[in-house]
């Protein structure tokens, strides 16, 4: 008995010694974009599309390739804006433009035939989110929201960035934010999942809001992987948002989504259920999609929906009133590219989706891209601006009957 026990111990020790180096050789976490890739996709060459370090020159931007419905026309409104992302209007007609990896915030001054581009902040941490109210520009970086008071009078000598709220998570994956004022006067933003697919901490994968003085932080929606675009319906005042779905589940699944928040605290499924009807192969075990809110629209796999904007301008035909423009930056985790377009959604009387159709496309030619539409912003005259972060340009779509 003793001998057997000792022998067993010896075997165990030998096993432990043999396994030691294996245990040490445990895989570290892959880079965030690669996380969640199953072993049968290990040889995939798919990787995120590199952001060019410089904007394209006007002559390198083939605006005529952008197709829009009959009666509409597209022009190059501004260029030379490295990594141009969100756009918001100041009270005095300045267009503020954000960027992501370029770390800049810009002010565009309309000179009639041309636009002057001024850098009003640089070296920021993925400053994607910008909002404007009562003369003040609000900027959302990864872990903080700041403001520049009276900025429009000081474009050449910008005021200091005052902290509004700076205790947000510091995680960089999906850490950049969309920022917008809701009808309730609160600042809304996303806190994305810090991964492709994982059970996120309770503090992540949500839509949140805070008062403009930094008080009253609260979560609005849960189970949202990463939403960097939302807007409020002009009549119902409900919050509609796009979400980027997880990667590495194949070319055609899961679909990205377009959702509406019906009440505070709803859970939209991540990481357990995707697109309302597809359990996650790993995290969906023991879960039911019926326990989570289903999307009102599946926008397509990997389309990467960013900007959401309901149209309330006076220029486009009557049927465009209250339609939502969805800017789709386009896929990387798909063997054939998809997205790279602006879609439009007609909302029905019940708040659901009546129609989903293209509005502007052509940045994707075959499987080659020359630009990536990322956000829209209606002009005072009712025409629509589209920002392209890849070409560093802004296009203007106008209509005349």
């Amino acid at each position: 008995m003793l001998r057997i026990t000792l022998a067993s111990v010896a075997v165990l020790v030998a096993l432990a010694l043999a396994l030691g180096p294996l245990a040490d050789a445990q895989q570290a976490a892959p880079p965030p974009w690669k996380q969640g890739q199953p072993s049968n996709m290990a040889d995939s060459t798919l990787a995120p599309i590199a952001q060019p370090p410089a904007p394209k020159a006007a002559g390198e931007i083939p605006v005529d390739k952008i197709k829009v419905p009959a009666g509409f026309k597209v022009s190059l409104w501004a260029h030379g804006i490295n990594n141009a992302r969100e756009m918001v209007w100041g009270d005095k007609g300045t267009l503020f433009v954000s960027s992501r990896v370029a770390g800049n915030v810009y002010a565009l001054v309309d000179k009639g035939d041309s636009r002057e581009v001024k850098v009003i902040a640089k070296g920021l941490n993925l400053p994607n989110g910008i909002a404007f109210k009562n003369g003040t520009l609000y900027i959302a970086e990864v872990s903080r929201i700041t403001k520049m008071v009276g900025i429009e009078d000081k474009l050449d000598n910008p005021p200091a960035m005052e902290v509004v709220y700076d205790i947000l998570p510091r995680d960089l994956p999906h850490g950049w934010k969309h920022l917008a004022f809701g009808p309730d006067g609160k600042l809304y933003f996303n806190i994305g999942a810090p991964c492709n697919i994982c059970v996120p901490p309770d503090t992540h994968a949500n839509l949140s809001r805070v008062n403009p003085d930094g008080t009253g932080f609260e979560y609005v929606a849960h189970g949202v992987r990463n939403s960097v675009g939302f807007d409020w319906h002009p009549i119902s005042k409900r919050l509609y948002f796009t979400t980027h779905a997880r990667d590495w589940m194949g070319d055609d699944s899961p679909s990205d989504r377009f959702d509406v928040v019906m009440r505070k605290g709803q859970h939209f499924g991540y990481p357990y259920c995707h697109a309302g009807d597809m359990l996650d192969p790993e995290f969906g075990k023991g879960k039911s999609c019926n326990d989570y809110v289903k999307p009102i629209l599946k926008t397509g796999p990997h389309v990467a929906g960013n900007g959401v904007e309901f149209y309330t301008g006076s220029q486009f035909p009557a049927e465009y009133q209250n339609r939502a423009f969805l800017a789709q930056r386009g896929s990387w985790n798909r063997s054939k590219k998809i997205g790279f377009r602006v879609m439009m959604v007609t909302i029905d009387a019940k708040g659901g989706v009546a129609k989903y159709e293209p509005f502007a496309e052509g940045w994707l030619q075959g499987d080659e891209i020359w630009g990536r539409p990322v956000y829209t912003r209606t002009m005072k005259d009712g025409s629509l601006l589209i920002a392209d972060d890849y070409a560093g340009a802004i296009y203007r779509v106008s209509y005349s009957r």
Partner: protein
Amino acid sequence: MTTGAPAPTADLEAGQRKSEPCKACHGADGNATIPGTPSLAGQPVFFTHWQLIKFRDGRRKDPQMTPFAANLSDTDMADLAAYYAAQRPQPRPAVTDPAKVEVGRQLASQHHCVSCHRPGLTGHEQIPRLAGQDLAYLVKLLRGFKAQTAGDLDGTMTTAAQPLSEADIENLSHYMAALPPVPAPPR
């Protein structure tokens, strides 16, 4: 018509001219010899250009590089990046320890370095070639990412460096420095 910063169309000859002040540290053709100073020859265009932007904007800091980058225009950066990308990288005369190289090889696999830096660690697009880079520079940069002071473009390297021990950094750097300096594929 619109105005704005004219986007640069890179000019290699202009890049060579503009690289005069860089030669003292980075070498005549972007192959540096000073320990701690990176070679730029054969680095991807996007990589060098983005690093210059980061130095100019203060997101990457270095007592020597920061003043040089402060006054560069977007065109200067594009020309310099194109010039260095076109140069043939030479091996650095680093003394690497074969035992550390071997441990580093395993670490590189465990930490998925090739996911972004590509097989052979040649780099591509905005991601640098590490193969055959200067040993002391690699150690310095990895320590910076670990300390969250190196300021990368999108956080990928800062995240990746967090689990690394000082010994891991040493071993990984020996492995990368010992690889042949194959240039990144052209865009």
